[in-house]
């Protein structure tokens, strides 16, 4: 076995590298910069060019980091390693490892549907495929980006038209940029929570069209505004200054009524950076892999389905990845919020 799942992460002994380790290790390949995949403390990191700045921003400016492009293989001790687009967030990669004809792909988090922003997912043929299963149930069918963006803009305009502000909730890395992309040219002031503003900076996004949140900003702008904030902002007192407002939450979990209601969202937008049921199935089949390792999400259900439906050798693997956490705090939001208020 070229890869092993050990107590520190997904390990390739031949190359001496870990992929998305959850403990500090010597060499770490990082699929993407979300905090459950990119953890602090490893000696050296390898990731895609587009993840570079955000990793330095999140893990520290002094980390030892090498970045490469998609499909630019490098070889370590006979193992040929390359990155391929995962379509999850900007810079997200699948990691392909090949040694003596055996090919493994660790997909990290991925989505198959293009979002108009991220380099689209590319299936990579392999023998062993490590897949997430965040939305690995046949109840999850996500809308296409153009339809989703249109409904988001519609809602904002209706809300703003009735004199109310719109608060849109999404992760600061990934979801927030998709929201801003959808809102381009909407013609109303857009206020960003500090975590999102800083993430944009780290991504090299143009922050010029936006206003960074500061205390009292709600009162200083006349008329309704759009506010984009991370999940931790829901229920926090600083949102009150934007009253009257409506709350729109962007998450794959918004597909379920119960989740929508628990969040007290006026509206839920089914926006996810993960693959839905169809996407997961397509992705797995497109690799042609016989051996599937199912990680974070509905893993036992999805593995059972893959074995029963397609006769694949599918098994579950325990990891510390979290997928799309609805109830938990956005990784950096707490810190940023403190800084901005």
């Amino acid at each position, binding site marked *: 076995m070229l890869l092993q799942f050990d107590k520190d992460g997904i390990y390739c002994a031949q190359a001496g590298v870990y992929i998305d380790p959850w403990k500090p290790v010597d060499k770490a390949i990082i699929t993407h910069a979300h905090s459950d995949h990119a953890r602090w403390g490893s000696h050296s990191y390898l990731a895609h060019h587009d993840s570079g700045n955000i990793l330095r921003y999140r893990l520290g400016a002094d980390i030892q980091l090498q970045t490469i492009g998609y499909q630019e293989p490098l070889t370590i001790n006979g193992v040929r390693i390359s990155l391929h687009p995962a379509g999850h967030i900007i810079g997200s990669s699948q990691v392909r490892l090949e040694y003596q004809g055996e090919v493994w792909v660790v997909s990290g988090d991925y989505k198959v549907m293009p979002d108009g922003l991220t380099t689209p997912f590319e299936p990579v043929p392999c023998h062993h495929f490590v897949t997430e299963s965040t939305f690995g*149930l*046949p*109840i*999850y*069918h996500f809308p296409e980006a153009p339809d989703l963006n249109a409904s988001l803009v519609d809602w904002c305009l209706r809300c703003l038209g009735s004199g109310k502000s719109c608060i849109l909730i999404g992760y600061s890395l990934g979801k927030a940029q998709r929201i801003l992309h959808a809102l381009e040219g909407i013609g109303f002031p857009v206020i960003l929570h500090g975590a999102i503003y800083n993430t944009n900076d780290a991504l090299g996004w143009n922050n010029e069209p936006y206003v960074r949140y500061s205390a009292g900003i709600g009162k200083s702008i006349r008329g309704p505004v759009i506010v984009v904030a991370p999940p931790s902002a829901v229920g926090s007192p600083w949102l009150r200054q934007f009253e009257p407002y409506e709350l729109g939450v962007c998450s794959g979990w918004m*597909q*379920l*009524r*119960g*989740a929508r*209601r*628990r969040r007290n969202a*006026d*509206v839920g937008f089914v926006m996810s950076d993960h693959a839905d049921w169809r996407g997961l199935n397509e992705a797995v089949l497109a690799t042609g892999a016989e051996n599937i390792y199912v990680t974070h999400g*509905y893993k036992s*259900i999805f593995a*059972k*389905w893959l074995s*029963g*439906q397609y006769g694949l050798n599918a098994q579950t693997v325990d990891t510390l990845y979290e997928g799309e956490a609805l*109830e*938990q705090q956005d990784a950096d939001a707490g810190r940023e919020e403190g800084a901005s208020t």
Partner: protein
Amino acid sequence: MRGFTDLYYELDATTKTSSKVETLTRYFLSAKPEDSIWAIALLIGNRPKRPVKTNDLKAWATELAGIPAWLFDDAYSVVGDLAETITLLIDSQSVAGSATGLNELMQELQTISVLPDTGKKEKILSYWRVLPPRELYIFNKLITGAFRVGVSKLLVFKALAKAYGIDEKVIAHRFIGNWKPDTISLTDLLKEDETGDTISRPYPFCLAYALDVELESLGSIEEWQIERKYDGIRGQIIVRRGELFVWSRGEELLTDKFPEFGELTSCLPDGTVIDGEILPIVDGQIRSFNQMQKRTTRKALTKKILQEIPLKMVCYDLLEKDGKDLRDLPLQERRRSLEDIVVGSKAWHSSLELAPLLHAGAWSELDALRNDAKAVGCEGLMLKRKDSNYETGRKRGKWWKWKVDPYSIDAVLIYAQAGHGRRANLFTDYTFAVWDGDVLVPFTKAYSGLTDKELIELDAWIKRNTIEKFGPVRSVTPHWVFEIAFEGINESPRHKSGIALRFPRISRWRRDKALSEANTKKDLLNLLHATS
């Protein structure tokens, strides 16, 4: 059904009472009357029987979605709602709304139940294939279990009153009882007409809020009537045109369950409606609620059980006298008339009793009275303003209930299961245990009492501290102690622990208590013996 679907989603999207009433009023003004009557029935919970079996629906949806049955079950346990699960699995791509009216749809659903299985399937699938997602969800809600919307009956009546310019109280009275939307028209229901079915019609019950203000703030104690609060079945006894009707607070007609009251047609004058509590009373002693349940859940009422657990009504209000509605008279006057009727009747001390009035010279004496209540099988006290009219539904200020403090016990969380509906996908149904030596024995489940924030925190903890999974149930590391409050304790051969609690709920998360400080089985047994 498009109009009804829009209504549902609009009601669902707001928590404000005023906008709910507005939305409802707008619907009643714009919908066809034959659709409105169904909407009213569905909103106030007067729904027809399910036309198809749940298992059939599951099988057909599974087939349509092309998945194995186990996957349907897993999906269902995550979603927590059958109608929503089916809707999501079907994943409708349809965009056109359906032209079928609510009335037409409901009528058709009624006819489905008599079709052979293949016919049923064909019909249901013909809807599943064409309805767009929102309507599909509503359709599935209509053919599966509970159709619940976040509106109370009172709000529906308020909107009807607004839409039709009729007094709210009159509306509430006309729409109470067991009318069927397919046999009566909206116009007939709205018409004042005391014929046919309507002689059985009860009045909407007046309900009290739990006392949450200082007694002293209620003014002079002289202005208040003090009664015991009974722990039986709240009911209304109606005698009209020589016929007897017994209604429960849940608006179920229970006349046949209580043969005791059969004598009343000859004891009470026509046009009498009494409000009171139906209770098992033997030799002047109120028996436990447990006995009451034994009696009411029995399908066949044998002579033996009738003798063993005889029921009486403890009367506390008179709503109609000589066919005249007394609800706007002050309580004091209604009470006088009630006393005249009950005491003057042959049924007094047979099937009817009069609720005694308690007297206290000062508010400070009330606490003692309240604690005495438990000793005579009551739950606490009722405080009713002597000048109060008989309100429709729950209103603040005129009537208060003041219950005795509940029992409580500290217990350890040992199992958890995901909830349903709003709590789907969260571990919110808990099983608690007490110590028996060094073993934790489960004794009760509890579902409510924690805040949303606590639920989410506990859910995350449960997911990290699962020991084993048995189907949907997880056993967790014994760690947290919770204070469980409950209203009563009874022996129960059906439960493993041998006891059953009434209304158990979580009153506090005792983070301050160590595992060893939880109560023991012996503590529970002591409580059981002390109360029975």
